[in-house]
Each structure stands twice: as structure tokens, then as C-alpha cells.
């Protein structure tokens, strides 16, 4: 193993079966208070045929300490932000403050029922209202809904708003506008969300510079069928679309609206505002830019922010401040929004994430938000600098908060992006995002975020360089990586061919 590996060593790691394989008849890990009301025969309360008859066969029976050990052991198999830099491009894996976790657990918030009468939940509504205000200021887009549960959900919401707006504006004629323009570099959720909203997708080429091809855009806009454009900015190559104003003008002139995918807002907060660029509607990822934890795949929160003009189309209910004279402000729910696209989720969205995001905004303060953006971009630039000598950088303009490299040089030796990623694991780092965006062959998209210091950035650069070196001198070593993990590369093809998606008792166990 290369002695360039400084971040990790190998150590024992606990094994752990599936809980179902640990289960033992009769073990229990819970205790409830004894039933304190007169008990009626179940059959008197519920017809037999409505009752479960499988006695929950197969559901595990384990003790509390079994459960604790089960999850503590499994947890030790995970990489996490708290173990180090997590440079997944486009994912903004920044530090998740413990303070925000604590805020989300304050009993007066954690125990409020979503259908509580508003006068008894004013604090809960105030949090939503204040967060909406701050996000409006940060994006420059005054209409905000926190109902969407994640980025893709926010996209769907935003696109449906565009559709509702066009229908209201053009009436029947709107049926002629069902084309959504999406750059070839876009994240897969963009076309999927457009499709969900009944649009057909046309793809815009990117230039060799990695920016939207204006001529192609003009051409696509020349047929009168364009409902809008979905643009990520900075785009998924980590480059700021410097023609954004012109882009918006072209789309607007063609009668369409501009949707911005805000997944990369970590490059802009406090620096520039989509609203000032001509963007009509955007989604944010509170679980990226605003540091709410990713939780191994969610929960997220994908607020949708739009112009005053589009505000009437936002999902219901809206949280509005009632005019009040003395004391605390009071808030109420407004449902009577005839133009609204309707509800995209029960209740108010992923509320717990809103508490955390508001705490993030308040603890950073306006200066802190800007400084975080500066640090995030600085770190990405630093990495860009450190790796250009060893890796192919397809676009030479300086990156914003993330930078893309390719495996071009290494592939000559048969070492590909996947191999480099897996080898990074041996060096103790979580790999970057790979093979995205699709337009870059063998893409490696690196986003360090602001939550990493120079020491670790240097370690990362050294690791990547050492791997580049290995790719030349010992390609096999890289191709077979990782070598130091508890399991090796898994056969994903076989897994997909005959998928086993749940545990089943082996005949003898039944």
C-alpha cells in the first residue's frame, strides 16, 4: 500500500448480520405502561376478517442492547462529514452544526401537531415566515414556498408554477407552449421534473467553454413553443453562466420563463442574487446550501422562490402575517389562492429542516453567509490549482464552488474515473461525484465546500497526485481498488439482474 496514504490506517471493524438473522423468539427490547382502561375482547371491537392473522411473522425479536449494538456496529462502516472532507460535487456536503440539531429538538417545536389551530402554533408559523423572508432576500425573489420536500420536488413545483402562469397568461394558446429547454449538462432531476409537469424536453448544447450555447438557445427559442428554460447557475461544471442576463432575455423575448436550479447556490449566497439576473423561479436545497444534514439520503427541503408576478401560483396554504398593533406578530394560513398550483405535500413541508436552516442563517449572520461562500469558492479554486498538473481540466475558466476534472490522461493507461474514485477510498477520502455531468467524459466533479481546512485540502491534493502517479506506474493497483475496505467492489450488474430487495426467512428458519 502506498505510503503516501496519510489519512487512514487499517484497523478492526465489527461485523454485523441483518437484524432478522439475530432475532430470537421471545426477546423484547421495549416496555409500555400497562393498559389502564377496561379491555374489551378484540373481536367485539373489530370483525375477525379485518384482523391480522400472520402474528407479524418475521418481524424481529431482539433486546435493546441488541439494537444498540446492531446500529452502532453498522454505523462504523459509513464515511461521514464528521470523519472528514466529503467532496461530492453538486452535493455541498458541509458541516452540520450540532446547535441546529439541538434547535430542531426543542420540545415546543418537535411536539407541535401540524393540524393545531393556528393561534396555538404561532411560534411554529413564525419560523416558516421568517425563513421565507430571509430566503427571499438571499435569492432576490420575493415569493417563497417551503412546502417542497427536496430539490426535485422544488423543481416540479417551480415548473408547475411556470405552466400555470402560461395557462393563465395565454389561455388555450398555452397548449402550444409545451417545450422545456434544458442544457445537456443538467442534473437528471430537471428533465424528470419537466416531464412530470407535462412538458417535452429539448436539450441545449454547451459550448466548448462549458457554457450555454447562445446560438443554439436562440434557435430553439425561434419556434414559439418554448415554455421555459431550466438552467443551473453556476452550472454543473462549476462555471458561472456569465451570459445569464442575455439568456433570460432571449427566453423572455420568446415568451418563456426562466427556472434556475439552485443546487449550486453555495457559490452565490451574499455575492449575487438570481432575482437580479432575470430568473423567474428557483429552488434551493436547504440540505446543501443551508447545511441541513443529508442523513444518508434525506430528509431534504427544496424551497421554491419566485417573482412577485408568479407568487399567486405558489402552493397553498400560504403563511401570511396579519397586521397587528401590539406585541408579537401573528400569522395565519391563507388557502384562498385561486391561481395556486395546489398542494405538493401534506402539511407544511419538511419543517424540521426549516428550523435548522433558519438557525444556520441566524448563527452565520449576513457577513458569515458571505464569508462561507468565499471560503467555499476559495477551496475549490485551491483544488483546481493543485490538480491541473496531474489531471485533465476540460474547461480552463476558473471554477466557482466546484471544479470538474476528467480521467483523460489516466485512461490511456486503462485507469478510469471509477478506479480513481475507488482508489481515493484507500487514501481515506470519500470520492468526488463521478460521471456527472454526463457531457464530460469521465467527469470527476469536486466540491470541497467551506467546511475543510487547508491541511486536509493539501492531503486531498497529495492523494490525487499520488493516484495519478500510481496510474502510470501501477495501473493494476488502481484498477483493483479499494484494497483496504471491509468489502471490495460489489457486483452491481449481478445485483440488478436478479435483484434481492428484502430479507426472507430461509425455509428451515420458518
Amino acid at each position, binding site marked *: 500500500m502506498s505510503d503516501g496514504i496519510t489519512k487512514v490506517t487499517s484497523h478492526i471493524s465489527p461485523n454485523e448480520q*441483518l437484524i432478522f438473522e439475530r432475532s430470537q423468539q421471545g*426477546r423484547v427490547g421495549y416496555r409500555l405502561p400497562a393498559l389502564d382502561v377496561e379491555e374489551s375482547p378484540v373481536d367485539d371491537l373489530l370483525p375477525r*376478517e379485518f384482523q391480522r392473522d400472520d402474528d407479524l411473522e418475521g418481524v*424481529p425479536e431482539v433486546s435493546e442492547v441488541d439494537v444498540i449494538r446492531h446500529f452502532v456496529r453498522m454505523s462504523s462502516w459509513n464515511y461521514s462529514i464528521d470523519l472528514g472532507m466529503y467532496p461530492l460535487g453538486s452535493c455541498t456536503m458541509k458541516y452540520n452544526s450540532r446547535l441546529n*440539531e439541538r434547535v430542531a429538538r426543542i420540545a415546543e417545536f418537535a411536539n407541535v401537531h401540524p393540524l393545531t389551530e393556528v393561534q396555538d402554533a404561532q411560534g411554529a408559523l413564525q419560523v416558516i415566515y421568517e425563513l421565507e423572508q430571509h430566503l427571499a432576500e438571499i435569492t432576490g425573489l420575493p415569493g417563497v414556498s417551503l412546502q417542497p420536500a427536496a430539490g426535485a420536488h422544488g423543481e416540479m413545483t417551480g415548473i408547475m408554477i411556470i405552466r400555470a402562469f402560461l395557462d393563465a397568461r395565454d389561455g388555450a394558446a398555452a397548449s402550444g407552449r409545451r417545450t422545456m429547454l434544458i442544457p445537456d449538462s443538467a442534473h437528471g432531476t430537471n428533465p424528470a421534473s419537466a416531464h412530470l409537469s407535462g412538458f417535452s424536453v429539448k436539450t441545449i448544447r454547451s459550448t466548448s467553454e462549458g457554457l450555454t450555447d447562445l446560438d443554439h438557445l436562440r434557435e430553439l427559442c425561434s419556434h414559439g413553443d418554448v415554455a421555459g428554460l431550466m438552467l443551473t447557475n453556476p452550472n454543473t461544471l462549476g462555471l458561472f453562466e456569465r451570459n445569464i442576463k442575455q439568456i433570460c432575455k432571449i427566453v423572455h423575448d420568446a415568451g418563456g420563463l426562466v427556472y434556475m436550479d439552485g443546487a449550486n447556490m453555495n457559490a452565490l449566497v451574499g455575492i449575487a442574487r438570481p432575482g437580479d439576473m432575470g430568473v423567474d423561479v428557483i429552488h434551493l436545497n436547504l440540505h446543501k446550501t443551508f447545511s441541513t444534514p443529508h442523513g444518508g439520503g434525506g*430528509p431534504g427541503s427544496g424551497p421554491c422562490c419566485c417573482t412577485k408576478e408568479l407568487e399567486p401560483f405558489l402552493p397553498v396554504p400560504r403563511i401570511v402575517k396579519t397586521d397587528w398593533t401590539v406585541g408579537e406578530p401573528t400569522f395565519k394560513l391563507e388557502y384562498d389562492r385561486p391561481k395556486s398550483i395546489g398542494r405538493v405535500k401534506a402539511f407544511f413541508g419538511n419543517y424540521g429542516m426549516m428550523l435548522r436552516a433558519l438557525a444556520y442563517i441566524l448563527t452565520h449572520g449576513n457577513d458569515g453567509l458571505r464569508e462561507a461562500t468565499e471560503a467555499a469558492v476559495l477551496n475549490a479554486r485551491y483544488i483546481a490549482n493543485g490538480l491541473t498538473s496531474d489531471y485533465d481540466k476540460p474547461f480552463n475558466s476558473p471554477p466557482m464552488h466546484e471544479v470538474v476534472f476528467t480521467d483523460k490522461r489516466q485512461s490511456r493507461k486503462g485507469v478510469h474515473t471509477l478506479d480513481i474514485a475507488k482508489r481515493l477510498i484507500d487514501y481515506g477520502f470519500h470520492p468526488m461525484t463521478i460521471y456527472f455531468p454526463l457531457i464530460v467524459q469521465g467527469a470527476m466533479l469536486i466540491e470541497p465546500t467551506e467546511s475543510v481546512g487547508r491541511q486536509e485540502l493539501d492531503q486531498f491534493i497529495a492523494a490525487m497526485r499520488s493516484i495519478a502517479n500510481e496510474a502510470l506506474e501501477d495501473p493494476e493497483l488502481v484498477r483493483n481498488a479499494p484494497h483496504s475496505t471491509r468489502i471490495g467492489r460489489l457486483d452491481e450488474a449481478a445485483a440488478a439482474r436478479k435483484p434481492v430487495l428484502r430479507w426472507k426467512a430461509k425455509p428451515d428458519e420458518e
Partner: protein
Amino acid sequence: MLEAIGLKSAEDLFDSIPQDLLLKRPLNTPAALSEIELLNRFEKMGRRNAAARRPSFLGGGAYSHYIPTIVDHIISRSEFFTAYTPYQPEISQGTLQTIFEFQTLVCQLTGMEVANASMYDGSTALAEAVLMAERVTRRSKVIATSSVHPQYLEVVHTYVQHAGIDLEVVPFDARTGQSAAALAKAVDDHTAALVVQSPNFFGCVEDLSALSDAAHAKGALLVVAVTEAMSLGLLKSPGACGADIVVAEGQSFGVPLSFGGPYVGLFATRDKYARQIPGRLVGEAYDKKGHRGFVLTLATREQHIRREKATSNICTNEGLIALAATVYLETMGRRGIQEAAHQCLQKAAYAARRIASLDGFLLPFSGPRFNEFVVRGPLDAGALLARLGKEKGIEGGIPLWRFFTDRPNDFLVCVTEINSRDEIDALVEGLSEVSNR
């Protein structure tokens, strides 16, 4: 570091942004707060949630059940809550194996064959189920009963409005509170799916087996939504009743109310539809040495590969909440889930009996119940419950007029294992007192 990359000032970092787009002023958001100040601020706002500390009988899609202490301890472990979606299996087995267990538990509880890694919540899961039903049947008509949670129906409507699906809502039976025979009749050869909820919004258990026969007779799918997942501990599983797609809100399994989210959507179906499922799936896999591991699989269904042809646009789901549900279910275990469900049934029955015996109060629906039921009081339910809250400090229920304007005096009461007999008795006495004026 700036020097190291040949820059003079932080401004230089943004020189690719046109001058006229740069924000020339500080953001108009507050200056930084210290931990102490922040906590005071939130605690102050929290005190404005009068309801949070009261005994509560609110259900209607979000339930107060006991959460074993270890649930929060486990989901607070850095290794779980600060990890991303498990794209790199070699260093994500902790997350992957727990999702595999989650999928298995969902199958066991719903009586289905395959389940995904989670959806945003029950309402969006139902909407995705409807879209999936259209995909598998290639039919465009969807029939739902009005006893499905009104907000769920709203979400379904939003999702299907541009999908060329027409959604027909058939009224429930005002006597039983269950879905009317009319529902079964409405199914025809163009029907993609019959959509019901059980226990339904009024707490009444639907006759799923009958509805399944009706749907299948016409080649339609039966889509069942469950908002009170605890009922699965006691009620015949939708799968056993013949459901083709089962979705549920998993909040009852160890997830705090938290003003409506984050919760977790459960999504389960038949093996034959596995490749039509929205969202992520975790499957078993082996490495060269034959070690078992788990991976994200069947990704070809998903948006990052299929783009607009994906089975859904969902990407980030509710991983950590699914973990909470998994810890909950494994801690309570087979017997604990049964006991919690049994106590819900018994306590709700006790409360229903006592309330029904108050004069001026009656239970309008005759259908069988789990832990929720509708009460009709002697006066406007909003006023009645507001008094109960103010004077008795009890959150007594949900006024139905919010959703059904023709039911001014009706309200929905939910009782779970955490409502002590004293609380129930206080509710009953409270109701009679505040109504006798």
C-alpha cells in the same frame, strides 16, 4: 491561501460574475447570533406554541406515539446523519444495510413483496402510486374515495393534473363512514386504479378485500394508503387483502410530530412491478471474495440515468427518517408493535364509549375503528375545541369543517398508547363541561 492561487482579494474569486450582477451591499438578514442568543430566540418562539405541552387527541395523518429513547441516540450518530446517499458502497454499508432492513420491514408490515428506500411522505407516495398505476395499466382513469385524507387527495390532484389522468372522487357512505358501494361500481375497463385509505380519514377501517375484488374484476389496481401505520400491527395487511400498491405515512414509527415533517413515505408493491417503482432501491450484492454487501440497484429506473423517462423525479428521499422508523420497529419488535396497536384500539374504544355516553354527543359513523373516530357535538366544533384548549388545556381534536364544510359540529378524535386514562377522562369531562354553556 489566496496568494497560493495567485489572487489578491476575495473579490477576485468572483471575477467570472459580471460586475452589474454582483450584490454591492450586505445581505439584509440579521447579524450573527451566538449559541446562547440563538437558543433563547428559538425557545422564546417555541413558547408561542401553546399546543406543544398539552395532552393531545389530534391525529388526522400525524400521530403521537411513544418514541423509545434509543431512536434519537442512533439517528444522532455522526456516521448516519452526516452521510450522503450511499453512492460508494465500500464506505456506506451502514446506510445500505439499514435501508435493506427498512425495505424488508415495510414488506412484512404491508404484506407486500417489494418496497423502496422511502418517499417524501405518505401524500407524495400516494401521488406516485397513482402515476405508477397509470404506467403499469396504461389506463388513464383513477377513482378515489372521499374518505381519503383531504390533503392527500389535493396532492394527488396536483401531481396528476398534467399527466393526462382524470381523477374521479366518489363520496363515502355517510352512515358507515366507509367507502360506498358506489365506489366499486365506478370501476370500469378504463380504470387504472381504485384509491382508498384504511383506516380512512374518519378512522373507519375499509373492507379492502371487497374493494380489491371489485378493482381486479375490471383489471384495475387497488392502491391502498395508510396514514396511521401503527394500525398495521393489528389490521389485516393490505397485501393480504389483495392490494397492488400500498403506500403509508411512516411517522407513527418513532418520528416526532415536528409540525408536519420531516416524515417518511412507505411504498410497497408486487415483485412483478419492481422495475416500475419510483425512488431508490437497495439490493444484495457480493464482492469478488464472496462477501455479502448491499448496493443501490435498478438505477436505470431513475432520473440520473433515464432523465425524463424516469419512473419519478425523486432523488433525495427521507433516509434518516427511514432509519428512525427502522430503529423504532426493531426496538419495539414483533410484540411491541402488536402491543402498541392493541393499546391504541382499546384506549380509543374506551374514549369513544365514554364520549358517546355524554348527552349532546354522538358518533355519526358506524364503521369499525382503530384509534380514531368522528364525534358530533352539540355546537360548532371549532368553538367547542377552542374552549377546551383555553379552559382545560387539552387539544381535543380536529374540527372537520376545515375539510367538510357541511359538518360544522363534527370533529376527529385520536387516542394512542400514550394517552393515559386520566387524560382521556379529562377530555370526556372537559367536553361535557365546555358544551354545557
